[in-house]
């Protein structure tokens, strides 16, 4: 890996060197390195580009890192990563994509992640998207996530995109089974003329299933964001979605939340708020000795944390 790739890896996964446990590092469309463990197997797909990751039933306290790095301008790829999680697993998946584009052609990564999660699992998924480079070519990421969450299983997803992605359309489709619990926390910040769209659709099909979807976003400069969520309750379930946006400069943010209850015992709530940074928050921090700009930075950092 060269210095640019190492920097991308640090930005998206906080890694200075090869991680512990299982990993699969993809660089410029090819496999850079891979490690499997007794419980986690990684197999290259033969029909399309991508990998299948198998977690043996009962795998506990193990993690897999699957970073994707692009530093070659003009590279466009669609990658399929499937996660097959056996019953009774307790695992962490650290994904992420970093694009450095120093050229004038667009670079694009479309990652299609499918999760097949068995019963009684606890899965944590962390994903960070990051872009850099002075080139005029755009850095584009269009991730699609498909989720099937089995009985009594919990999935917590943290998805962050703070810097450097020019255009993104993020699509997430989930189905939650009996007693299953899905938590999604998304943080997005856009600058310049960037655009970001998030589309979530979660169906709660199992009794006592639960979903909590929280999106925090900051739009700066002339950037544009769209948040769409649809939560469908087909059984006795509880669902909560929240979209909280800060707009700055000449940006624009739209929220289109939708709730559908198809069962008398479905309880669904949505909260949405979009607005500029509250003046009194700035004032308070300034009375502590911060400048207006420092105050703004603290408020945004906290908000997206």
């Amino acid at each position, binding site marked *: 890996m060269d210095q640019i790739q190492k920097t991308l890896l640090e930005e998206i996964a906080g890694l200075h060197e090869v991680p512990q446990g299982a990993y699969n590092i993809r660089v410029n469309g090819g496999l850079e390195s891979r490690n499997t463990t007794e419980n986690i197997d990684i197999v290259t797909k033969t029909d399309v580009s991508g990998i299948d990751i198998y977690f043996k039933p009962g795998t506990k306290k193990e993690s897999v890192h699957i970073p994707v790095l692009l530093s070659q301008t003009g590279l466009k790829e669609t990658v399929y990563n499937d996660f097959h999680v056996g019953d009774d697993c307790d695992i962490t998946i650290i994904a992420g994509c970093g694009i450095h584009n120093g050229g004038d052609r667009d670079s694009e990564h479309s990652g299609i992640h499918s999760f097949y999660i068995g019963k009684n699992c606890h899965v944590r998924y962390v994903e960070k998207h990051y872009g850099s480079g002075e080139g005029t070519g755009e850095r584009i990421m269009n991730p699609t996530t498909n989720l099937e969450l089995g009985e009594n299983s919990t999935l917590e997803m943290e998805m962050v995109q703070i810097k450097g992605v020019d255009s993104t359309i993020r699509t997430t489709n989930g189905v939650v089974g009996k007693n299953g619990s899905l938590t999604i926390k998304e943080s997005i910040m856009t600058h310049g003329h960037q655009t970001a769209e998030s589309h979530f659709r979660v169906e709660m099909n199992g009794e006592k299933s639960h979903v909590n979807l929280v999106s925090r976003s900051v739009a700066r400069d002339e950037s544009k964001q769209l948040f769409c969520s649809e939560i469908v309750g087909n059984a006795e379930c509880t669902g909560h979605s929240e979209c909280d946006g800060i707009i700055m400069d000449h940006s624009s943010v739209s929220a289109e939340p939708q709730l559908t209850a198809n069962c008398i015992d479905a309880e669904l709530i949505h909260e949405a708020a979009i607005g500029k940074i509250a003046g*009194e928050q700035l004032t*308070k*921090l*300034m*009375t*502590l*000795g911060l400048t207006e700009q420092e105050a703004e930075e*603290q*408020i945004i950092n*906290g908000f997206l944390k």
Partner: protein
Amino acid sequence: MLELKNISYLVDEQSTTKEIIRDVSFKVDERFVAITGPNGGGKSTIAKIVAGIVKPTSGRIIFDGTDITDMNITERARLGISYAFQQPVRFKGITVKDLIKLAAGNEKGNVDICGVLSEVGLCAKDYINREVNASLSGGELKRIEIAMILARGTKFSIFDEPEAGIDLWSFQSLIKVFEKMYERTNGSILIISHQERILDIADRIVVIANGEVSAEGKKEDILPELLAGTAACPALTEKMK
């Protein structure tokens, strides 16, 4: 320490001009000075004028011999003015620890967070990582607001109705906070309050009603008047019955 000279604050309301503060002058040189008076009298507006949050229409503000009238909020804060709001501000994602560190003015965490929180009756273990958001009660927010001022430890501090929501804690503890604060800073503390027990520790009392100073003097002279209902503060006497 602080002097307000002929401060007025006018706001335009539809076709008329409303006088929120009218020609207010007073000095704060003692350890503790209390401002009291009826609700809507203009007490918080005066505090905001001192902190730089509200710009007066006319008049001057002198702090430690320097005219600070044209300084902004940040400059005044850095000169040594602190203000605990009547209504504390909530933040999404910012924790109690973050705020206290920002107040202390160092990122490295040299501030005794546990110490300032315990002074206001909060156990650091339970609060340090809590977000300063709507999940905290009004009383908890008030105490965190006070803890921030303690962490700053500046020579001049304003507390705007600090007694609100401290029911579970005691007035005695609140008074101790002010006394300790004075010992540490050797400065002046301006307390806006309706509470007799807090007014009782003041060296001087200024009564603000209808945007004006309606009475001012030594605690020994003003407090009995207030309690007797002769000073223009019916709301206060009502509260103390």
